[in-house]
């Protein structure tokens, strides 16, 4: 049980260093939106001042994706039209490029 080798410590330190790199990331539990039905997916977002703007960008990206529905949510029969999806992704990209 107390047999910790040097390798373990190196691996543990590596995780700490990785954590340091992702220090600005947090979890967003989105409010369920009746239109997009995103459900309870949790996404990583950057914690900076304009948290709401970035959050919106991510929501735009995720709400158009049917693959990222929460498990257990019945898959909706009507899929979003492609133009709408493209528009959302474009909007998300624009917002993200502007901010990072």
């Amino acid at each position, binding site marked *: 049980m107390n047999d910790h*080798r040097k390798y373990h410590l190196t691996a543990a330190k590596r995780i700490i260093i990785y954590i340091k790199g992702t220090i*600005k990331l947090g979890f967003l539990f989105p409010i369920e939106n009746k239109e997009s039905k995103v459900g309870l997916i949790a996404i990583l977002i950057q*914690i900076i001042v304009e948290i709401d703007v970035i959050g919106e960008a991510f929501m735009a990206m995720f709400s158009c994706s049917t693959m990222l529905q929460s498990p257990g949510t019945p898959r909706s029969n009507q899929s979003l039209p492609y133009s709408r999806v493209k528009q959302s992704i474009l909007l998300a990209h624009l917002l993200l490029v502007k901010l990072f």
Partner: protein
Amino acid sequence: MIIDHIIIQLGLKRCTDKYGMYVLSLSDNDITMICLYVDDLLITGNNKDAIKNLKFIMHYEFEMTGLGKLSYFLGTKFITIKLGIVMHQQKYICELLDRLDMTNCNIIINQLETNAKVDECIIKDKVEVTMFKHMAGSQRYLCNSKPDICFAVSIINGKHE
């Protein structure tokens, strides 16, 4: 425990798996939960009246004061924005880095070496157990807000068995 006794008297059921969790469910769509940690109580649920009622009882019985919406609890910060709730452990990570004296290290993008063979370690130098356990424990706690490190943490913790 007095507080446990009173919570049970109010009709809440103690959770069998998780210590300090109490659930009150009057109907299918109505749930109120209490999380008890030493002298802090977290109350949540979808019935506003039930929460108000519980808060009143707690104030009356224990002279507790409601601190409003949850913002900081056990090293985890909660921010409510219009899109949902953001959860992060930035302060805890900063404190951890300070404690380990690793604030100036260069960052890496992958959390585990490729083809890592922890069990077949050749170097037989034993390391300081206290420091290792401190790091491993902190990492297990950080898994709550950073699920991407879960696998790497499980690899280095797996040898405990």
